[in-house]
């Protein structure tokens, strides 16, 4: 009888161990598969040359990832510029200003933004946001910024609504809940005594937030921002609708572009020869490394706070 129990327990244990191992296996397998399939392109174009060249020409069989990498980075940076202030404001509102009874509903509402599927963001961006950007916001921005030297290069071109700016804006809406919920959690961790001593010194609420809460929770907020970066880097559908697919690098934010994930979505099923497909795998491999690094860094920082 006892032996049967031991056998069953061993079975259960190994089954659960194997299941946990699946996580590791998937990661390793992804890395290996992406590397093997991108190897022909790595050999052909090298690392530095591929990253710096924006020649993406399937007809001449020359590929460079710079266009897609540039688009990925610009949309991500734009989204962070829009999202960080908003998310911090939201977190301050939830933890410091919002009446206690409404707190839960408000944070749930903001977190709902994270559960809206990316395809919906894309649809909405294409049919609702892009026309608004094209007809009202982008002409307005051009009116304001075109007379200013240097900055004017960011706003040149015909406003189409299908461009880097719109994509960055949509991405920012998607990542707001990630930053704001981590910021909210770390704001809540600030010891009450610290806050009260600031008030006892006669600080206003804003001074307390600026000089006590922000310094205390900067690592947590930073890790939230990095997680959001990881999200924004790999987002596909939300930007696929509103970015066009242009591998050339334009300085203007009002021009269409492409990101790594959008390139994959648009061209992966059309790649008809080995080097083309391999170059796409190369891009996927770069994206894999980029988001893995970002998420790993965030994880490391979060671990440090918990200690």
């Amino acid at each position, binding site marked *: 009888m006892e032996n049967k129990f031991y056998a069953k327990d061993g079975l259960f244990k190994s089954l659960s161990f194997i299941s946990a191992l699946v996580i590791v296996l998937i990661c390793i397998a992804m890395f290996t*598969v992406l590397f093997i399939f991108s190897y022909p392109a790595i050999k052909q174009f090298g690392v530095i040359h591929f990253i710096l060249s924006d020649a993406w020409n399937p007809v001449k069989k020359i590929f460079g990832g710079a266009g897609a990498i540039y688009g990925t980075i610009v949309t991500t940076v734009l989204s962070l510029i829009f999202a960080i202030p908003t998310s911090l404001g939201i977190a301050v*509102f939830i933890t410091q200003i919002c009446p206690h009874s409404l707190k839960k509903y408000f944070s749930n509402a*903001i977190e709902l933004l994270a559960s809206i599927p990316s395809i919906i963001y894309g649809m909405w961006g294409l049919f609702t946001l892009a026309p608004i950007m094209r007809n009202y916001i982008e002409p307005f921005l051009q009116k304001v910024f075109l007379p200013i030297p240097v900055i004017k290069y960011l706003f040149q071109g015909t406003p189409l609504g299908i461009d880097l700016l719109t994509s960055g804006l949509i991405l920012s809406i998607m990542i707001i809940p990630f930053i704001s919920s981590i910021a909210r959690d770390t704001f809540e961790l600030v010891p009450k005594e610290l806050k009260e001593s600031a008030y006892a010194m006669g600080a206003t609420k804003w001074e307390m937030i600026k000089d006590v809460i922000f310094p205390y929770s900067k690592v947590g907020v930073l890790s939230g921002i990095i997680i959001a970066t990881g999200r924004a880097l790999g987002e596909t559908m939300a930007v696929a609708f509103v970015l066009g697919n242009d591998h050339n690098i334009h300085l203007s934010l009002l021009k269409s572009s492409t990101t790594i994930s959008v390139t994959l979505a648009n061209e*992966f099923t059309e790649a008809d020869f080995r080097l083309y497909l391999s170059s796409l795998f190369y891009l*996927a491999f770069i994206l894999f490394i980029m988001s893995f690094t970002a998420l790993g860094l965030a994880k490391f920082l979060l671990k440090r706070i918990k200690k």
Partner: protein
Amino acid sequence: MNLVKKRKVKNIIALSVSVFAAIIGLFWLVFILSSVLVKGISSINLSLFLNDPAPPGIPGGGLRCAFVGQAIITVIATVIGVPIGIFGGTFLAEYGRNKKYTAVISSLADMMTSFPSIVVGVFVYTIMVRPMGHFNGYAGAVALAIIMIPIIVRTTEETLKLIPWEVREAAFALGAPYYKVIKDIVYRSAITGLFTGILLAVARVAVETAPLLFTSFNNSFLTLNPNQPMPSLTVTIYQYAMGPYKEWHKLAWGASFVIVLFVLVLSILGRWIISKRYGSE
């Protein structure tokens, strides 16, 4: 006096900026939901659910095949993903509790929940679609399962860790082997949390698009065979929204309406269960 006034004004400005940020956040939520619901509701009719796509120009087309395909892919993904996820999470929280490599696996799972889903699609394409020679529904389901597993692993681990250790010790003291303790004591007390985790994971993967693009692909006919390319709502929305026809856009909005409603109901339900079960703490 002047300085105090300046500080007070600064305070009010800063706090109003924060309120403004909160309003922006809510504004986006309301803007997106209302435009999807308003544009979608006019496309909701019986033929959306009961008919297959008609050629452009002919009225009365629907998306029956996409609804069926989506359901089949999601069910297969759930069948693959849930047991692995639950078992994996159990190992992390129970058998491997204090081991160093457990923390590594747990962090890895956490990172995988934010992974670019399109890379998962590329990966599954190489391991399943290429060897089999054609796009198929199974590959789509595997891609979704890969996204689902880390989510369930993490929620399971967190939920099981909430069960007090003394409960297990009480069962050990009665002579119960560990697997029985897990099965009859731990799972039983954690069932609500586990269920919610599964619910949220299903809600998350059921609306993924990117991993399906190169795996289950698309198809405009009703198919019940997952060994064939399978249509799914999300990929169909992508294709139709990018297409030139007004009817296609209308169908895409209708499908978006259904998807948004599905996600909202599931995530509100999940949150409600959590707050009911754990809210009293």
